[in-house]
């Protein structure tokens, strides 16, 4: 095993790209659900409405991660 094979990077850069791409949505989802829980705890009677708004936000945040997923698969 020579020094070149030791340092060989196997795989595809797009996977790393996708990994980076999940960071933002990950943080976003954390904030989103955390805040939703917080506000539900503060006003339990509004939980239905909060949940609805939370899911709209979830859809928007997840689109980013999904675009990353598609990009990782599609772009060679």
């Amino acid at each position, binding site marked *: 095993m020579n020094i070149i094979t030791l340092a060989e990077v196997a795989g595809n850069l797009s996977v790393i790209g996708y990994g980076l791409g999940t960071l933002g949505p990950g943080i976003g989802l954390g904030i989103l659900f955390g805040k939703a829980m917080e506000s539900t705890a503060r006003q339990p009677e509004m939980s239905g409405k909060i949940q609805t708004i939370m899911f709209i936000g979830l859809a928007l945040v997840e689109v980013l991660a999904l675009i990353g997923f*598609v990009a*990782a*698969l*599609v772009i*060679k």
Partner: protein
Amino acid sequence: MTVAAEDGIDLFIPHVYDMVWSAIILVIVALFFYKYFLPKFNAIFDERSSKIEGGIENAKKAQKQADEAKRKYEDQLSTARVEASKIRDDARAEASHIIADARSRADAEASQISQSAQRSIESQHQQALVKLRGEVGTLAAALAGRILGAKLQDGAVQSQMIDGLLDEISDNKQ
């Protein structure tokens, strides 16, 4: 194993047959849910809730009836109680009445008896007095005649003396 030459993008390119089968399956499943599954379960839910509501209604009705019956019984009970106390009062009044009656009757009888006794005593007394007066007169006359003897042949003096004696006696007596 196959060569992994197919691009990832192939995943996102829909095939015609895939579309056809997806659409067919969707239509079948949707028809099943719209026409059979959910109406069936909704009917069951509705029936159950109506049953439960009916059950609650029945229970309410029974409760109401029971309440009514209870109230009726209580009413009856209280009227019976009132009646009983009334009867008791009546009886007590009557009893005291009877006692008072008996007492007054006994009183009256007693007084009557004592009165009649008094009266008979009085009449006997009177009788005795009258008899005594007669006897005492003749006795005294005889006695005086014997004592005085012949001194008193004069009838007039005799009777005058007797009368005076008698008056004295009766004056003394009174």
